[in-house]
């Protein structure tokens, strides 16, 4: 096992607000290996975006502050870097793509100008060469007639095309890690599909890792290698995408899957609401909304990450998976029969296998 490209350990990001201290990210740990896609999934307010922004310290300080933990990127602790050193890293080895491509592009410059700028900011290349690289990039992200569109302004592109342009800008310096925060949320489903395909394609081509932040489990199922489920600043569950969808273990993950509308078997919402960010509940943050909460859930701190069925790569922060507890409380008896290899061996037509859809 080689070193992961990005390793986040016990990250704590807080915001000092008038209402008090908001622990937006409260002890989050996960790794991103080279060439893989990790999805951070959660509702709004779960801290997934702040986690992504903490990596290159894009959060506004003050009021924000990285209060603890370490972010090791390719052997280097980013929390120890100065602002200037970070600036060299941003948009170079670590690139960002945001939800709203409109906001990421400057309306008064042509897209070509902006891509050339992105290239020249980090690499000492003549303008002509930067231009031809920019053209090549536009072509690779699937802009038809790249040469002709190069000198167009952002408003002359559709939403999907703008997102392709901002991807091209992000890829300009051949980053090792692409942090994509809800890159397809503002787009129509047919366009979303195109962009997700493109991301997967570019990942292979550029051999980069992707940290994709999304609220949409459908998107997660489509592109992720591994998944980190967040809730109220904590990691609830973490695992391989097939394991996680095959054997969702945390009650929150299960509830999140059950509330997806349109699966044909009735959506069930998660009752209650997100806990107060300034005054989170003791114990498991999810316990006030959890159907399986017992006394142990209501006291102390968030439960540690327990391995699911002895699988160290699939961990869940729930007391029912701790030593001496019985996970079937959460999962129900019938699911215990699921073979350990889960859906892994099943090929594309796996939907036929006892699937309820």
């Amino acid at each position, binding site marked *: 096992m080689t070193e992961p490209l990005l390793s986040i350990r016990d990250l704590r990001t807080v915001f000092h607000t008038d209402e008090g201290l908001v622990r937006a990210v409260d002890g989050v740990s996960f790794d991103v290996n080279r060439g893989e896609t990790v999805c951070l999934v959660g509702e709004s307010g779960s801290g997934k975006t702040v986690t992504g922004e903490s990596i290159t310290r894009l959060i506004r300080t003050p009021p924000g502050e990285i209060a603890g933990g370490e972010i090791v990127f390719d052997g280097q602790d980013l929390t120890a870097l100065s602002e200037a050193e970070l600036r060299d890293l941003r948009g170079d080895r670590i690139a960002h793509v945001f939800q709203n491509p409109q906001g990421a592009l400057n309306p008064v410059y042509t897209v070509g100008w902006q891509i050339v700028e992105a290239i020249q900011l980090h690499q000492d290349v003549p303008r002509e060469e930067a231009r031809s690289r920019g053209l090549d990039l536009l072509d690779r992200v699937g802009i038809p*007639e790249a040469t002709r569109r190069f000198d167009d302004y952002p408003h002359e592109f559709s939403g999907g095309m703008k997102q392709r342009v901002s991807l091209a800008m992000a890829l300009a310096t051949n980053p090792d890690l692409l942090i994509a925060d809800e890159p397809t949320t503002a787009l129509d*489903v047919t366009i979303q599909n*195109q962009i997700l395909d493109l991301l997967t394609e570019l990942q292979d081509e550029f051999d980069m890792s992707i940290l994709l932040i999304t609220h949409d*489990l459908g998107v997660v199922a489509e592109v992720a290698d591994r998944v980190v489920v967040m809730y109220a600043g904590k990691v609830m569950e973490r695992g391989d995408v097939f394991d996680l969808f095959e054997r969702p273990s945390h009650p929150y993950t299960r509830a999140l899957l059950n509330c997806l509308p349109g699966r*044909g078997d009735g*959506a069930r919402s998660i009752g209650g609401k997100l806990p107060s960010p300034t005054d989170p509940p003791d114990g498991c943050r999810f316990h006030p909304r959890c159907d399986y909460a017992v006394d142990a859930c209501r006291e102390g701190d968030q439960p540690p990450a327990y391995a699911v069925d002895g699988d160290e790569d699939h961990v869940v922060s729930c007391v029912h998976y701790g030593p001496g507890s019985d996970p079937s409380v959460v999962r129900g008896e019938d699911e215990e029969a699921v073979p350990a290899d889960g*859906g892994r061996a099943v090929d*594309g037509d*796996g*939907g036929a296998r006892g699937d309820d859809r």
Partner: protein
Amino acid sequence: MTRPLLDVEGLTKHYSITEGVLRNEVGKVRAVDGISFTVDRGETLGLVGESGCGKSTAATTALRLEEPTDGHVVFDGEDVTAYDDRELKRFRRRAQMVFQDPTSSFDPRMSIGESVAEPLRVHGMRDRERRRRIVGDLLERVGLDAADVDRYPHEFSGGQKQRIGLARALVINPDLIVADEPVSALDVSVQADILDLIDRLQREFGLAIVVISHDMGVVREVCDRVAVMYLGEIVETAPTAELFEDPQHPYTRALLGSTPVADPRRRGQGTKLTGDVPSPSDPPPGCRFHTRCPEVIPDADYDLDAETWRAVLNLRLRAASRGIDVEAVRVYAAAGDDPEAADPEAVRAEIREEFDIPATLPDPRAEEALAGALDRLVVDDVDGAAERLADAFPTVCRRERPGLVPDGTDLSAAEWAAIKEFRVWVATLVDAEREAVAERLEARCANEADREGSVDRLAVRAAFRLPEPLSDSAADRAVSAAVDALLAGRAGDAADELYDAFGPLRERACHLNRGE
């Protein structure tokens, strides 16, 4: 009672694009281009489509929040498009709208009690105490607390605000609610709650609801029937279960196929649509979806798979819109050398690659035509190439506009459109006296009446472009019965006859299903 609460027919909304100080019209955005649908009492109809397909405009023009350019909207036997201001206000009491963003639809300086009670006040309820009682009761019915009346919008979460939005729509006891993307601004974890609530309120209040959404999942959850829109037109309507089990229009299939499923074992299996939605100011001729349709029909019998045919057609369409920049391709093909000296073979290969067309097409005749067109492109003759491609790769999907036809009948699209137009006209007369019906009929059929000026069956059928007989015998019988009832002055019976025979039928607009 089989008549629908709402019958929308031929609804059209065009926005003018103007230029200069004189505001000359230089073009039109065809936001909604002749759509028809009905909504029964107690029924939920979904209007679904991508952004820009005109679904929101369809709703606002149907409620006359915006003036329609053309078309009829019949609400409970009255023509909404003919209402004056006073009648419109009365109509607004019976038809309410709920908006996507619950935050911006409330005045932040008004307590929610005041906000919810506002429609009551506007419509003339002076008794403050009574207003407060009604609002408190409603808040409880949408899952909030009666004591919340004095709190302000910012104290509520998005989901709660959407509940309050529903309460405000319900406060004057409407018959119809139009909900524009009611849950898309909400987290998935609360979406199900709101959808549940909509379902429950519908049963409790016997409401007719139109839900506008881009999300097939949402539509599946709450709707009884669905109308799929693309570029201002309805391409398919069907009961929800049927639509999801057996989508008939390629666009519906593509929409369903593009919706990501929360199952990693099924990844990569969705339909992939290429390209963007064309501009509604210049919609493609023929079927509006043909520029992106993965199932577009070739006229000629070439031995090409669907993907290759699509790729060749993309080249054809791009050439026709003069969207191929040969100069740029040459720069590419030259790879840094002098573009003028670029090898023509390399340029041809580059064009093929840009359009994902294989190096040689498996069909020799198709390959010959394509090679000929590429040769012209290489010498900068884009028009010649476009012509050549258009001749060699024609498609009915571009040539002819497919109209909606109902399933299970032999009616043609034109006949079906005529029946709907006739039906909506009859529907405006259901409460009219016998004399008034005769009068209106006479006026409508004046050009077709015989010399003595009397209106007979033939005149009515001619006036409404209903050929005798219609291609479908059952339809013909129903139309004949309706015409007879109308001539006898019984408009109500005529309407019943038509709505009974042509209730909510499954419809689709696609050349693919023509032969069946």
